[in-house]
C-alpha cells in the first residue's frame, strides 16, 4: 500500500477523533442558539461532563455510569443557564461565562476532595472506558485495495461516542427541520412573539433547547475523559467548547456546514503537530502556533463579512418578555 495513502488515512482518522467532541458541542450550541439562547457555556458543560464521567467511571468501574454522570452534570449546568436566562431573563453571555468559571473551579476542587491527585482522576483501565468498536467485516475487507483499508482504518475502529457524534448531525437536522418541535424551536429563536401568539409557550421550547444542548455536551464530556482519554486532567477541555462555538458561527448555524467547520478545525488540529519543524519551500519552518490560531482567525474573518454574512437567529440573546 502506498505510503501517502496510509499517511492520509492516519490524518483523516485523527481528524475524526479530534473533531468528535467539537461536533457534539457544536450541535449542542446549534440547538440552544436556534431556540434563541446564546450558549457560550459549551466549554463549561464539556469540562464538567468530562470530570463527572471520569469520576463516576473510577468509582464504579463502569463507563456507562460515567456516561450517565456526564450527562447529568452537563444537563445540570444547562438548566442553571436556562433558569438564569429563560425564567429570569438574565444576560445570556454573563450566565454562560458564569457556567464556564463554575465548571473550571468546581472540577478541580471536587477532584482534589475525592481523589487527592492534584485535580486529576486516577488513570482508567480499559474496561472502565469506551473502547474501539470493530465494525463487522472490517478485518475481512482490510485486504481489498483502497476501499477496504478505508473502511477498516477510517470507518471502523472508533469508540461508540465518535459514532454518536457523527450521528448527531443528521439527527439534529431532522429534529429541527422535519418535525413540529423543530419548527417551533427555530421560530422561538427568530421571532418568539410569533410563537407566543400562535399559542405555544416560548419558555418551554427554550428549556427543551438548552436541555438538548446539555445532553450533547455531556456526550462530548464523556468522550474526552473516558473514551478518547483515560481519566480527567484539569482544564482538559482546553478551549474545545469555544472552538465549537466558532465552528457554529463558521457554519452559520446550519448542521451540515457546521459539521464541515468542525472537520476542518479537527484537521488543522491533527496536522499541526505533524508540521512541527517541517521545512516548507518558500515558507521555511512552519510556525505551529500559527496553525492552532487558524480556526479562530478564520472565524473572525468570517464575522467581519469576508465570505458573505453569518446571520445569527434574529432573537438570539434576546429574552422573551411577554408583558412590557
Amino acid at each position: 500500500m502506498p505510503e501517502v495513502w496510509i499517511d492520509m488515512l492516519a490524518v483523516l482518522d485523527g481528524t475524526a477523533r479530534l473533531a468528535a467532541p467539537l461536533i457534539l458541542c457544536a450541535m449542542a450550541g446549534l440547538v440552544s442558539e436556534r431556540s434563541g439562547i446564546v450558549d457560550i457555556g459549551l466549554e463549561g458543560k464539556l469540562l464538567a461532563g468530562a470530570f463527572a464521567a471520569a469520576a463516576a467511571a473510577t468509582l464504579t468501574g463502569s463507563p456507562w455510569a460515567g456516561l450517565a454522570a456526564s450527562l447529568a452534570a452537563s444537563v445540570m449546568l444547562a438548566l442553571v443557564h436556562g433558569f438564569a436566562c429563560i425564567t429570569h431573563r438574565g444576560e445570556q453571555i454573563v450566565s454562560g461565562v458564569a457556567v464556564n468559571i463554575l465548571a473550571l473551579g468546581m472540577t478541580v476542587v471536587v477532584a482534589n476532595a475525592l481523589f487527592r491527585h492534584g485535580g486529576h482522576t486516577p488513570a482508567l483501565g480499559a474496561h472502565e472506558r469506551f473502547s474501539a468498536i470493530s465494525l463487522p467485516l472490517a478485518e475481512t475487507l482490510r485486504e481489498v485495495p483502497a476501499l477496504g483499508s478505508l473502511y477498516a482504518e477510517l470507518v471502523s475502529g472508533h469508540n461508540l461516542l465518535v459514532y454518536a457524534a457523527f450521528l448527531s448531525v443528521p439527527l439534529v437536522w431532522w429534529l429541527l427541520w422535519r418535525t413540529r418541535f423543530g419548527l417551533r424551536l427555530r421560530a422561538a429563536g427568530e421571532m418568539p412573539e410569533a410563537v407566543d401568539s400562535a399559542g405555544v409557550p416560548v419558555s418551554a421550547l427554550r428549556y427543551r433547547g438548552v436541555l438538548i444542548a446539555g445532553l450533547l455536551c455531556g456526550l462530548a464530556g464523556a468522550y474526552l475523559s473516558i473514551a478518547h482519554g483515560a481519566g480527567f486532567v484539569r482544564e482538559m477541555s482546553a478551549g474545545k467548547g469555544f472552538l465549537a462555538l466558532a465552528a457554529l458561527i463558521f457554519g452559520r448555524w446550519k448542521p451540515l456546514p457546521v459539521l464541515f467547520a468542525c472537520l476542518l478545525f479537527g484537521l488543522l488540529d491533527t496536522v499541526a503537530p505533524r508540521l512541527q519543524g517541517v521545512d516548507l519551500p518558500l515558507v521555511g519552518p512552519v510556525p505551529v502556533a500559527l496553525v492552532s490560531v487558524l480556526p479562530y482567525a478564520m472565524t473572525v474573518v468570517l464575522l467581519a463579512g469576508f465570505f458573505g454574512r453569518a446571520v445569527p437567529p434574529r432573537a438570539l440573546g434576546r429574552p422573551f418578555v411577554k408583558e412590557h
Partner: protein
Amino acid sequence: MALDGGPEQAGHPAVRLRGVTKRFGAVLANDDVDLDIPQGAIHGIIGENGAGKSTLASIIYGLYAPDRGSMEIDGEAAPVRSPADAIARGVGMVHQHFMLVPTFTVLENIMLGMEGGFLLGQGEADIRARLASLSRQHGLEVDPDALVDDLPVGLRQRVEILRALFRGARILILDEPTGVLTPDETDQLFTILRGIRDAGGTVVLITHKLREVMAVCGTVSVMRHGRMVGRRETAETNTAELAELMVGRTVGQAERPAQSVVGTPVLRGAGLTWRSPGGTLRLREVGLELRAGEILAVAGVSGNGQSELLDLLSGLSGVQEGHVEFAGRRIDAAHPATPAEMRALGLAHVPEDRQRRGLVLPFEARENAVLGRPEKAGPGPWTSAAAMQAHAEPLFARFDIRPPDPKLPAAGFSGGNQQKIVLAREFDTVPAVLLLGQPTRGVDIGTVETIHAEVLALKERGSAILLVSTELDEILALADRIMVMNGGRVAGTVPAAGATARQLGLMMTGAGDGAAA
C-alpha cells in the same frame, strides 16, 4: 370552513367585557372597561395613542392577563389566559407589528402551532389545500412558498389575516392595520373585512383614524386615558363628535395661513441617486428645491426612499451621485459634508425615529436638549448642569412639555412629550432648512395640534421645511407643495391646494401621474 358553525345565540354579543382593569407599573392602561361587540358586525375601537386600545385587544387575545374584570365570548364566561385559549374560542388577532417569522415561508408561518402531527410532512398537504381554499374564499391570494421576508407589507398583512382565519377565527381583531398600507391597499383590506362580516364573522377594528371607522364600521367605541368614554352607531355620528370624545374637548385644525410669499430657494438637490451598503438602489435621480417660508411635504408609503433622502440631506449618509447645494456650498461625492457641518450651515433635523436617533433615552431631558448644540451645554469643553437647566427651562415652558422637569430622563416622558423635546431642541434657533421626519407619529391628537402650530410658526419666520410623513391628512394640512415618492423616484410634485388623498394615493403606487410644479 372557518367562519360558519359558530354558536348562533341571538342576542349574545360576540365579546362582552365587564370591569376590565389593567395596570402597568404606575400607568392604568385599562380602567374598569365595559365593552360589547355585536355578532356579525365590524366594530371600531378608537382612541388616541396611549388610550389603552392595544392593551384591551391584547387582553381579549390572552396576551395580557387583566388585573380585574370578566370576559364572555358568545355568551359564555371565557377566562382567556393565553393566546391558545383565545384561539380555541375562535378569537384571532392581526397585530400592529406582524407576528410572523421573517425567515420562514408563508406556509411555515401559517402552520406554526397547528402542524398536524409530530412530523411536518404529515400535515403539510392538508394544510396547503385548506390554505388555498381559504385564500380563494376571501380573496387573499398569496404564494405559500414565498419567504415572508421577501413580501411587501401589504402581503404580510394578508398572511396575518390568513393565519388567524386558518385557526378558525370567528372574531378577528385588527390592531391599527392600515398604518402601513397605501390608500388603495386600505380599500382592499376593507373589502376583505366586509367579506368576512358577510360570511358571519365578527371584526374588531382598532384604529386612530376616524375616516376609516366611518367608512367600514357599523358601531364604534371610544377610549380615552384607559376608560371607555362612549359608544356610537357610525350612521348617527360624525368625525367631529368622535374626535371630541377621543380628546375630551373640541379639536380645531391648526389655522392654515394663506400662502405666504414664496421665498428664495435655500437648498437644491439634483440627480441624487443612492445605494444602500447592500447595493440596493434606494434613491433614483431625486431632485428637489426647498424655498424659504415654504413647506415641501414628501408623501409616500414608508420605505420608498423618504428615510434615505432625509439621511442624505442631513449629511448622515454621503452623497454618491448628484449634488446638493446649500448655503453657498456644493456637496457631492467628492466634497462631502458631515452632519456637524450641515448643522453649522443652518440645517436642523428632526429624525423619523425619535427614540433611536433623536434622543438618548437614559439621559436627562436637559442633556438631550443640548445634543448637537455643545455651546449650550456649558463653558468650553465642560458641561454645566446650571447652563443646561437654564437652556431647557424656557424650552419646556414654550412647548408645554410635561412633566415640566428637565432633570428627568428622556425615557420617562410619553411619546408626545419626547417628540416635543426633540422639536424644542431643533426649533430653538430659526434654521434655514428644517428636515422634519414623521413629526406626529405616535403622538396624541392634542399634541399634534401644538406641533402643527409650531411648524407653521417656524415657516412664517422664514424656514424652509421638508416634511416627511406617512399621514396624508397631516401633509394636506401643512404642505404648500407635495412631492410624492415611489420606489426611490419622485413620482411627481403637485401644489397642495387642490390635491386630494385619492390623487396622491394613485401617485404613491405609481399609477397616477403628477404634473411638475
